[in-house]
C-alpha cells in the first residue's frame, strides 16, 4: 500500500458523501461496496492516475476508489498512435483486470464493446446543461465533442431529432452509449477561472483566455443556478 498515495488522496469531498454520487471506475459490480477490499490495486494499475481513494469523512466509502473527471477523467486505457488514431493500451481495462475480488469486473477494451456496455458497468452518464454550454449559447467551442473517445456514438455534433439550424457543434449526449468517462467534463471550459481553480482543475491558461469572455457571460446569465462545468457525469438511479 502506498502511504503517500493514501495521504495524498484523503482530501475530503463533502459532495461525495452519499453512495449514489460516487463515480466508480469502469466495471464496478452492482455489489461493489461489499466486494471492494480497499486494496488500492486499481489505483496502481491506472496508467493515468485517474483513480483516487476517498477519504475518512466518506463514511462507509472510506478508501474506496472513485473518479473525479474534473481532476482527471478516465481515458479508457487508450492512447493515440503515431497515425493519430486512438488505440488501446491492452486487451482489458487495467483497473478491472487488477481487481482481486471482482468489485471491478474486467472489461474488453474495444470501442464496439465499450459503446454497448450494459448499464451496470457504466461509470455514469454525461449530462449537458445547454444554458451553460458555450457551444449551445454562442456556437463556439465543441471541445467535449472533439475529445470524446466515443465521438459520434456517445457525443454527437447535433441532436438527431430536434428543430435546430445550427452551424458547428451543438453537443448532444446519446445516453445509451455514454460510459461516463468524463473526458468531456475535463475539457469543458465553463468553470470559474481563478488561480485556485486552475491548479485544481488543470485547465490550461489558454482556455481562460480563449473562452473567458464567453464563460463570464454564461456565469453571469445563470448566477446561482450555475453548476459548473456545463457537462457533468452523473449517476442515474440505475447505474451502480
Amino acid at each position, binding site marked *: 500500500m502506498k502511504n503517500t498515495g493514501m495521504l495524498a488522496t484523503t482530501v475530503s469531498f463533502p459532495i461525495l458523501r452519499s453512495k449514489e454520487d460516487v463515480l466508480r471506475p469502469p466495471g464496478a459490480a452492482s455489489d461493489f461496496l461489499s466486494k471492494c477490499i480497499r486494496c488500492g490495486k486499481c489505483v496502481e494499475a491506472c*496508467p*493515468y492516475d485517474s483513480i483516487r481513494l476517498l477519504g475518512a469523512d466518506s463514511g462507509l466509502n472510506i478508501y474506496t476508489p472513485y473518479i473525479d473527471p474534473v481532476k482527471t477523467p478516465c*481515458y479508457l486505457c487508450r492512447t*493515440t498512435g503515431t497515425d493519430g488514431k486512438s488505440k488501446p493500451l491492452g486487451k482489458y481495462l487495467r483497473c478491472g483486470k487488477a481487481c482481486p475480488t471482482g468489485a471491478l469486473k474486467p472489461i474488453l477494451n474495444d470501442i464496439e464493446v465499450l459503446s454497448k456496455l450494459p448499464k451496470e458497468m457504466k461509470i455514469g452518464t454525461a449530462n449537458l446543461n445547454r444554458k451553460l454550454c458555450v457551444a449551445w449559447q454562442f456556437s463556439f467551442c465543441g471541445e467535449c465533442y472533439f475529445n470524446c473517445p466515443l465521438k459520434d456514438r456517445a457525443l454527437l455534433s447535433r441532436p438527431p431529432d430536434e428543430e*435546430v*439550424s445550427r*452551424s*458547428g457543434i451543438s453537443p448532444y449526449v446519446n445516453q445509451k452509449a455514454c460510459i461516463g468517462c468524463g473526458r468531456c467534463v475535463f475539457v469543458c471550459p465553463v468553470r470559474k477561472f481563478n488561480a485556485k481553480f486552475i491548479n485544481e482543475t488543470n485547465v490550461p491558461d489558454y482556455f481562460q483566455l*480563449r473562452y473567458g469572455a464567453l464563460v463570464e457571460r454564461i456565469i453571469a446569465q445563470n448566477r446561482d443556478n450555475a453548476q459548473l462545468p456545463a457537462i457533468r457525469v452523473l449517476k442515474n438511479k440505475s447505474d451502480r
Partner: protein
Amino acid sequence: MKKRIFIGEETAKGYTRREFLKYLELAGISVTIGGAGFFAGCSNKVDSLAGAKEFITRCGLCGSDCGMKTYIKNDRIVAVVPNKDDPNSKGFMCDMGLANVEQTYSPDRILNPGKRVGDKWVDISWDEALNIISEKLSKLKIDYGPQSTVCHYGVTEVRAPFYRQLFRRFSNVYGTPNFTGCGSQCAVSTMMAKKYSIGSVHPDYENTKCMVQWGSNPSSSSLLEWFSKVLPARERGAKLICIDPRANPMTQMADIHLKPRPGTDGVLALAMTNIILGNNLYHTDIAEKYGVGFSEYEELVKKYKPELAETITGIPAKDIINATMMYAENSPACIETGNALELHINGVQTIRSVMLIQALCGNVNVKGGMISSGEKVRLTDMELDDYKPFTSKGYSADRYPVLWQSRKMVTANLLPDTVLTGKPYPVKALMVIGGNPIVTGPNSSHQRKAYKKMDLVVVYDLFMTETAKMADIFLPATSCLERDNIKIRDRIYISPKVIPEQGNAWPEWKLWFELAKKMGYEKEFPWATLDEAIDEHLSPINITAADLRENFNGIDHPLKSGNMKELEEKIKTPSGKIEFHSQTLADAGYNPLPDYVEPYEGPADKKLLAKYPLLMTSGIRIPYYIHSQFRNLASLKAKSPGPVIEMNPADASSLGISEGNNVSISSLRGSIQAKAQLNKSLKSGIVAMSHGWSKSNVNELTDDSAQSLDPISSFPGYRGFLCKVEKV
C-alpha cells in the same frame, strides 16, 4: 505516488502531450486537435513561449476589429489570444480570429507574384508583374478607352476601407468609370433604402426596449455585435422579434419568431404598417410635419391587410398582429435588417417599407431606437472624386441610374453580360483585389466564360482561389497581421502589423504606390510611406499617423461644429424629411412608394414551380467562414466540414432522401451536389444552403440576367429562387 507507467494522451498536468509535441514541431500553428483548439502552448509554464514578446493589435478579418494579443518570437507568431482589456471587444474573439495564425502560415499561401502560361504558373518578380500590368493597361486605354478596364474590390472594403480609397484613386486617375465589387451584393442596397426613407441610422442596442432582427442573424454573421450588443440587450430584458424563414441560435431566444416565405418581407412590412395606421399607433406629427408623401403611402397600405399578408407570406394573421403590437407597444424599439432582405428583386423597396415603420412609431433619431452618429468633419478626399470627368459612363449607368449617381458604381453582376456581348462597349481587363466573384458572384459558369474572354485579369489574394485560377497575373497579398490597418469611424485608430510581410507579399497600399509609379502617376501618388498618405487624409482634423501610433485605443473623430442636437437629429435624406415618397426614385423612373413586388423566380410562376418545386434561400451564414474564405483552415473545417442542403424532413422523405444522403440540386442555370441535412424549422417547400464552397457552389444555380436583378440596386436574388432536389 506510484511511478508513472505510461505517459499517454494526457498527463496529470493537464495539457495534451500529443498537442505539446505537435506544437513544438509546428511552432506558430496554434490549433491542432479538432475545432476549438485544445492548445497546450499558451501558458507561461510552457517552454516555447519563453522569450516571446507580446504585441497587442486587432484582428482584421472582418469589421469588428476584436482586440488581440499576439506572441512573437523571431518575427514569427507563436500564439494569438483575445485581449481581455480591449474596450471594444472585451475579450471576445471568434474561431476565425483565432485561426489567423493558421491562415498566415498556411502552406497554401502564394508568396510570390505569378504569371499564368497555359495551365501553369510561373514565378515572376513584382517589377515584371507591374510592368506587364501597366503596359497592358496603357495599351488598352489607347485602343479601347479607359472604360475597358473594370476595377473590382472584394473584402478589402470591410477590412481596410482606406486601401479601397487608394484603389479608387488609382482607377479615377486611370480614367475608368467602372468601379465595382462586393457593393453589388452587400450593404449598398440598405444604404440606398435608408437614404431614401429615414436616413443613415443604426440601432441603439444599449438603450432599446425591443429589437427586431429582420433577415439578420448576428449570432452567425456579426459575432462581436451579437456578443457585445444584442445579447446584453436581451439580458437587460429587451424584447426580441426575429423574422427569418429558418431557426438559428438567436431565434431560439426570441419572444416571437415569424417565418415568411423568402422574398415576401415587403408584404409583411406593409401589413404591419397597415395595422399601425389602422390602430392609430403612429405619431401623426412625424407623418405630417417631418414626412413627405404620407397620404399617398397611407392610401397604398390600405389594401395590405394582415389576411392578405397571411396568404402571401404564410405567416398566420394573428402572429403578424402580435408582432406588430409588441413592436409598437415596447418603445423605444429598433429594427436591424440584414443582407438577406437586400438579395431579392424587391430588395430596396422592401427595406424602405421596413424602415418607414420605425419612423411612424417615433423610433428614428431617438435614444433606444435608431440613431445616427452625428456628422463628422470631412477628411481629405483620397479617391480624387473630381479628378477629371469620365470620358464614358459606367457600363451599367443607364440601367441603374440611382446606383450610378449616388455611388458612381457599376454593378459586377452585369460584368459577364457586358464582356460577352461587347455592349455598351468592349470591356477587356479586370482587376480583382481581395475578392472571389467566380464563387460569390451570380451565375458562376457565366462569370467563367467572361473571364476567359478578357485580355487581362489581375487577382490580388492570399490563396489560389477559383477566381485567381482564371487570372493572368497573380499578386500575393499580406494577411491582416502583416499589415497596418487604419480604421476611421467614430474613433480613428491604427491596428499595427506584428510581423513582417511573408515572402514577397505586399500590402495593398504598396501595390497602388508602385503601380502608380509605373503608370506615371507620381503626382497623384506622391507619398513615400503609408503614414504620409494617412497624414494627408487626416490633415483637416490635425491628427497624424504618428499620433495614432502613440494612442493605440484611438482618437475620436471630431464632429462638425454646430448644434449637437440638430446634428444628431438631422434626417439624412435628400429632402431632409422622412421619405414615404422618394422624389429621387421617382425621377429615375422607379416607384416612389415602397410597394411590394413578387420575387423574380418564385412560387407565383406556376409553370416553373411544377418543374422546380422547392424555394431555395442561399447564403445562410456559418460562424466559421466569411463567404468563400477559410475553407482550407483545418480548425474551422473540423467544425463545418462540408456543404449541406437543409431540407424540411417531410419534403425529404417524400423524395426518398434521408439525413446525410448525397443529393443533386438543380436550377435553370445548372446543377450541384451536396449532402442533405434535415431541418425541422424550415417550412415545407423551403430549402437552405450556405454559399462559398468551390465544389458545391450554389452560385452555379443563381441568375445574373438583368431582369432578375433588383432594378434599383442591381442585387441578385440569392435568397429566393426555385430549384429541385433529387437523390443521387
